[in-house]
């Protein structure tokens, strides 16, 4: 494997990991506050749809992004209503949200665009285009650093940089601010927050809203950054992979970066080597397609060990019955 190939694979990994990273951080906020969320997939899908639709109708990717966030937030609020206000089962609510998004996106898409749930292709400013960082072209020829900067770091859509900035930001918010302290506390022991005179409900809603915003960005990136429009079911299970990454990361922001990078990398490698030829045997493409998943299991079992979720996770906070 030569250097440019490595750069290319890493570049691809960065693109592939970005939606995972955003969704993973989204889940992190929610689950750190004690609200489990298996509806990441649905929220991303809804966001992808609303972002693509509005971007197409207005011609502005930024308005699309806003709409994506709005679409995802709407589902977040349903999740909040079910799991916080009405103390319902968070898993069921998540399952319902996935179904809802899967059906509504196509239904609305067909109603609006008549293309069987697709949106028309986006062009020009309706997409988040790749941005070139300053000096990228002038230092490209510097050995090593040049290609790393020009080809790997530069040349992604703005949302990629947003996602990466979200990692230290999340860390800072969680561990350096009052809000973060309370958020973590409410996921570990809501009674401690309640007896300290802080509203458990408000905190959990805040977390669920942040989760919605991040899923919204993830969905918008899928539809208006990575591709140019919405296709039904286009999230293709990424919400579940993000969930796996979150557990993998043991609910920590920096770990989330590494976990999602690992998933992105494995997929990029499998994309790059679809048919591994090992002497006389050719590994079939089905195996290479499954390889990221197999490796995940192996890494998980071999190196990661037990993951302990936030202690109050999944349970509605009830003080009187």
């Amino acid at each position, binding site marked *: 494997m030569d250097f440019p190939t490595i750069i290319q694979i890493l570049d691809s990994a960065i693109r592939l990991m970005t939606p995972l990273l955003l969704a993973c951080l989204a889940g992190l906020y929610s689950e750190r506050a004690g609200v489990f969320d298996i509806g990441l997939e649905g929220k991303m899908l809804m966001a992808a749809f609303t972002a693509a639709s509005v971007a197409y109708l207005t011609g502005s990717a930024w308005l699309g992004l806003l709409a994506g966030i709005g679409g995802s937030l709407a589902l977040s609020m349903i999740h909040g209503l079910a799991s916080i206000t009405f103390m319902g089962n*968070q*898993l069921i609510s998540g*399952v319902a*949200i996935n*179904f809802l998004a*899967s059906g509504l996106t196509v239904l609305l898409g067909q109603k609006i665009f008549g293309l069987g749930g697709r949106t028309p292709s986006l062009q020009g400013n309706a997409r988040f285009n790749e941005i070139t960082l300053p000096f990228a072209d002038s230092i490209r020829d510097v050995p090593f650093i040049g290609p790393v900067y020009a080809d790997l770091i530069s040349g992604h859509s703005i949302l990629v940089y947003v996602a990466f900035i979200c990692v230290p930001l999340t860390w800072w918010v969680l561990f350096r601010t009052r809000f973060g302290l309370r958020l973590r506390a409410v996921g570990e022991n809501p009674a401690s927050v309640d007896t300290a005179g802080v509203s458990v409900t408000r905190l959990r809603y805040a977390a669920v809203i942040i989760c919605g915003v991040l899923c919204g960005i993830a969905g918008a990136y899928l539809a208006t950054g990575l591709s140019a429009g919405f296709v039904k079911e286009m999230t293709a299970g990424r919400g*579940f992979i993000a969930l796996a990454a979150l557990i993998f990361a043991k609910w920590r922001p920096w770990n989330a970066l590494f976990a999602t990078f690992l998933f992105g990398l494995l997929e990029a490698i499998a994309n790059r080597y679809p048919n591994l030829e090992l002497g006389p045997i050719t590994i079939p493409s089905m195996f290479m397609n499954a390889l990221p998943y197999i490796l995940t299991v192996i890494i998980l079992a071999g190196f990661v060990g*037990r993951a302990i979720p936030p202690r109050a996770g999944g349970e509605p906070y009830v003080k009187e019955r």
Partner: protein
Amino acid sequence: MDKMPKWADVILTPLISLILAMGISALVILAIGESPSEAMKTMVEGALGSSYGWGFTLYYTTNFVFTGLAVMVAYHAALFNIGGEGQAMMGGLGVALVCLALPWPHWGIALPAAMIGAALFGAAWALIPAWLQAKRGSHIVITTIMFNFIAAALLNYVLVNILRPVGSMDPASARFPEGTHLPKLSDMAAGLGIEWGKHTPVNITFLIAIIACFLVWLLIWRTRLGYEIRAFGKSEPGALYAGISPVRITVIAMLISGALAGLMAINNVMGEAERLVLNSVEGAGFIGIAVALMGRNHPFGVFLAALLFGFLYQGGGELALWTTIPRELIIVIQALVILFTGALDNMVRMPLERIFMALRRKEGA
């Protein structure tokens, strides 16, 4: 001691929730410019209005009973098995291998053999996640998600490269021999001189599903193993104190769960398609999660929830087949039903409780 009578909790609350879900569904149907009453009529008639509709409704119900029970058993051991999809896929492979291995003389012999194949393959697919969870602490949610993908890849490989008859375009196994064809309920009814559900896929597996519900109920609430599964699921330190081995329970519960998911293949692969196709599970593994949770992790509840989903599947299918309403509407209706009856049920229960409390107070005064 309860805040409201039990009947109100188990019947009234879900009923009102269901009505709410249907109400919102009607709004959605209106919004896309169709007639809700027409849609409702098509659904109910298509799914429940004839022996034919029932034949399909019960067929889907059978699938969901198995995957629902699978999720449920694991859930009692505090294991969230999202891998029903993959386990059911592998169960299908087990069925196919058994059915194609021998020239079976009669279904009565083929069925038990195929059931063993289905259960064995499904259980085997749950074994590795279970073992990793028990021994290494690898989170079962991740591993079972991963094993769904791996199962799909494996099945794809086996069907395309091994089981596919030469020259066939279809990535599917050959047709199973005549001796493996399960009796349809319609045949059985015909045997009794009743014409019921002609050309419907519901077959003897439906009866097996009912038996499975009963057996799972026995297992969980009447056997030592079930007692231990429930105790372990509620408290691991408690289990240790009582001499219950966490490793053993984790592995056994997941094996049973995987076997139940695998058994679904008796219905769709052996009973309906009579061959193994790539997409035979069609998401039933995921529906099983909703079914188990909505059925409150009780076999009877699972059966009712499976029936509800069977109705939605068949009624929705009819809607999409015979009206201009897009098929995705059904998914939305399903989502709303899951949401209202499963997650927003307290929205209905809380006011109801208040009403009953007020009534009681008035009586008391």
